[in-house]
């Protein structure tokens, strides 16, 4: 009950403000992804785009509000699950971690300048030098 009230307060306060949009380097021509494909990319399992271009994944810190929104709304998982998954790869030698950036501005700049890059921001402006991907 308390949780529901808190959620409504949060929703009224933040409603419409926190949404996440997936952005990619302008060279990435993919327009849509499924939830599973997006999980594979951010889970560091899918390492190439069609045409064998290497994927470069950028994420915000786990404490960043947008990261939590991205995990819940886009990936439909909890942030702690993603962290556990990356830790398992990194400390067993079976994979690598995504690159962490501090702010949305840095995210936008790094994705725009890194071939094969994928990341997310709150809202993309029409003049931002990145492509967007819709997840269904």
């Amino acid at each position, binding site marked *: 009950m308390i949780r529901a009230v808190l959620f409504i307060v949060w929703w009224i306060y933040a409603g419409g403000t926190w949404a996440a949009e997936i952005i990619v380097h302008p060279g990435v021509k993919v327009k849509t992804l499924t939830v*599973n*494909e997006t*999980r*594979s990319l951010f889970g560091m*399992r*899918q*390492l*190439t785009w069609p045409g*064998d271009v*290497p*994927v470069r994944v950028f994420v915000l*810190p*786990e*404490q960043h509000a947008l990261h939590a929104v991205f995990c819940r709304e886009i*990936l*439909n*998982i*909890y942030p*702690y*699950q993603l962290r*556990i*998954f990356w*830790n*398992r790869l*990194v*400390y*067993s*030698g*079976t*994979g*690598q*971690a995504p*690159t*962490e950036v501090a702010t949305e501005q840095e995210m936008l700049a790094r994705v725009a300048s890194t071939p094969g890059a994928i990341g997310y921001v709150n809202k993309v402006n029409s003049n931002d030098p990145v492509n967007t991907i819709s997840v269904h």
Partner: protein
Amino acid sequence: MIQLIRFLFINIALIITSGAGARDLQDGVQLHGFASQGVASSSQNQFNGSMPGSAGVDMRELGLNLSWQAAPDWLVSGQLVSRWAGATDNGTVRVDYAFVDHSLTDNGQRHLGMQLGKVKNSYGFFNMTRDVAHTRAGIMLPQSIYQDQIRDFFLAAPGISLHGSEERGDSLLSWQVSMLHPQVNSQNLTAYIVDRQLGHFNARTSMLAQTLWEQDGGKWRVGLSLGQFDIHFQPAPSDFFGAGSFTGAGNVTLNTGVLSVEHNREDWSYTAEYASTRQLRRGFNVPFAPILDKDTTIEAYYLQTLWRFAPRWQALARYDAIYLDKQDRNGMTFAAVTTLPASQRYARDWTMGLRYEPSSIWSLFAEIHHVNGGAWLSKLDNPPAGLKSNWDMLLLQAAWHF
């Protein structure tokens, strides 16, 4: 070599001084590491340097790994680990893993790859990263299944491994099959299987397989691990009170399986694992210790709940049990035959713990254990004759990683 050490040293110093997280050294190359220090205080028995009335600080883990994604289908990675844990580990730097991973096919939904080198053993949910404090739910992994005494079996081993995964709808099925040569020349393992002797075990080629099914991004996870390990005991002449010189060398085959189940919700995670290990012993032929040639089935399981009750905070509750002989759970038959304490044949451990993460790279842990039995205590720290059956323990730990 000196240049590499200098390069690593400078990068680690930069990470520490900047408080940064994971480090991309250059395109495709990553450096990660971890460090932890713990304190143990036990009411009875010894654990990681603790003694009744004095705390122990022989609880330390240091690790550093490098990985190089040379191409999307080629990954080279290696990790060095140094660990202190009472008499069972003295800080010797060891290669934790070092292998090449090549992806054979990958079409998005289906993946097939192979690994060659010293590979981490996929056994249960947590074996692959068992020495990395921040990947564990608490300070200790449930010792019933992740026993430190026989860790040498399970840690990692030189070999070859095939792995694959397949996505269907909301399900992800992954699997791994390894042919390996376990590294078993360890005093801990010898003490565990034949008590404290000077001889040592040699391994034969062994098999390990795991399959893992995940539903809806990991909300449900179910795993099955199966292994067959063959080892051979080479006694020293003085072993078994001099009988070692005329007895045959023993063979032990361990057929082991773990069933793992986990359910993850926003604030709660529930984990349960059940392991059954059949020990087949042949050829020891020690006249006064026929028990060395007795086949037994080890049964182990735990139930664990994690509660993320506030941001950065997590509480742990766990019940963990092991019986070294399923047919003799209270150890009475063993005690009658050997005159050793029955309590070395079982352990039931109630654990309550807290975790606080002041930042993304630090974790602080505290946990209390109420234990009945000593089956998973190191015999190097605790000679069986002096084992106390009821004991409590307080553990504290700080862990850092990048």
